[in-house]
């Protein structure tokens, strides 16, 4: 059974990935990471995760790029180190930005790239961690869509009313249906954001 990534194992995996890329002459690559591993790396939520969710690529000019597909050589290196660290084969993936409905193609929040936190893991791999504010956007959208641990993460992020409203408006720009708005309103009420629910 694959191991869960805590902060220590997450950093170990990313450092080993960088070293493996260097050994094979791959990269450099910069990836933008959201999801559980982003929350763990930024000390926003105390939990473990199974994978590293890449929401975008970043080029040398610090311009965001589509992560679907992720470069084969990057994925190959990630798969190669997985068994050694006991991780899932696809521990590095572009799940949140896969396909037309994915976050990257559907549109990232305004000012997204200016809020990223850059961290180099060596000469070959740089990770841009998604900010708390943008994680709230993604978590609210995911919570309304799928519920579950996304709701727990959202609660732990403890957004202000202003943050929650901004996130809700962004989420509604991705799913413009009345049904989705109603789910969002109901969830905001349940989470104690009645004023935000009223405003949207």
């Amino acid at each position, binding site marked *: 059974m694959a191991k869960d990534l805590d902060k220590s194992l997450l950093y*170990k995996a990313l450092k*080993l990935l960088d*070293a*493996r890329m260097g050994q094979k002459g791959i990269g450099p690559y910069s990836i933008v990471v959201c999801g559980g591993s982003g929350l763990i790396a930024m000390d926003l939520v105390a939990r473990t995760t199974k994978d590293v969710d890449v929401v975008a690529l970043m080029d040398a000019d610090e311009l965001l790029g589509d992560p679907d597909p992720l470069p084969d050589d990057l994925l190959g290196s990630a798969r*190669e180190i997985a*068994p*050694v*660290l*006991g991780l899932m084969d696809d521990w590095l993936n572009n799940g949140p930005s896969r396909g037309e409905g994915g976050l990257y193609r559907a549109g990232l929040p305004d000012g997204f790239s200016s809020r990223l936190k850059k961290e180099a893991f060596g000469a070959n791999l740089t990770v841009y961690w998604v900010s708390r504010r943008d994680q709230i956007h993604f978590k609210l959208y995911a919570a309304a869509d799928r519920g579950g641990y996304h709701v727990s993460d959202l609660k732990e992020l403890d957004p202000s009313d202003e943050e929650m409203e901004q996130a809700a408006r962004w989420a509604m720009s991705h799913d413009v249906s009345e049904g989705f708005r109603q789910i969002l309103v109901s969830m905001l009420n349940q989470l104690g954001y009645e004023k935000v629910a009223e405003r949207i």
Partner: protein
Amino acid sequence: MKKLLKEFKRHLLDTVLDFLWAQWSALGVPGHARSEQTRIVDPEALILLTCSLGRNDARLFDEMLDWISLHERLVQIQRLKNMARDEEFAGLPVLRAVGAWMGHNKAGVKWRRLMELDAAPAEAEALFCSRDGKPLPVVKKPDPGFERHGFLRDKVSLRRHAQIFDPELPSNLLIRLRAFFGVNSRAEVMTYLLTHERAGAAEIAQATYYYKRTVYNALSEMRLSGLLQLWEWGTENLYSPKGDLWQGFKASEWITWAPLFRALEYIWKFAESMQGGDIDEQLAATDLNVLIRDISPLLQKANLLGHLQIPTPGADKGYIDRGIGALKGILDLLVEG
């Protein structure tokens, strides 16, 4: 860990070179004690491994040239090409140079077909290395034929002391039947049938590196001789040698050497990459795990996967110890028999 990997590399090279000498010796190359092994030597697979790991022993390499000069009519060039391409042997550029070298005289015209293989290295490199990995310099004049194909070595000077293979040795069954049937698929087909209870065209084709259609046609025709027994197995026809006529040939043992030899090339590449400066334990573990992943299907193809005790991957030194132990188990296959 560094010491372990260094010792493993030395053990690997010593074992492989001893094995190559033993196999060439069984085919008629002098200079090594001839063993009584029953495992059938495959000349084409042997040439391919000698074109890669054999570069660590210049004398062995030239004994191969001596042997193929004497037996060149018994080498199946198309099979050599199929095997080289199918398994992506590392020694293709060297094989190409050997083909050009053999093809320089009239008798060796068929060898020129090997020049259709992969291009030579971009920059000329030493053909031979010493056992410690250092390139052997050209002492006198470089051989122009090899130099043209990207390899620097002294001019080839054959000793011409290779002997015709001993047909009585069980390990020479394939080349013996090739001498009898001619250089075509029937020698391999019959060798395979003599060393297995029964087999069909697909299985034989995979193990012998002929096309399935070629083997199928050969079996169909050979059956007309009345010397093969046919067994219907579902939709497939299986064959076995009929009667007592072939009893005296059954002491030999078939091994599909080519995938095992390719696996040895992978293992060698791993061992070489683990030399030099500081070795990161986790990267070494990754390389080892990738190596085991790469060689597993090859060993499966050779029906030898059971000899690889695959350890559970980990980033610790214990994993590297266990992995090296597993690789040594593969090398033991070369010593047995």
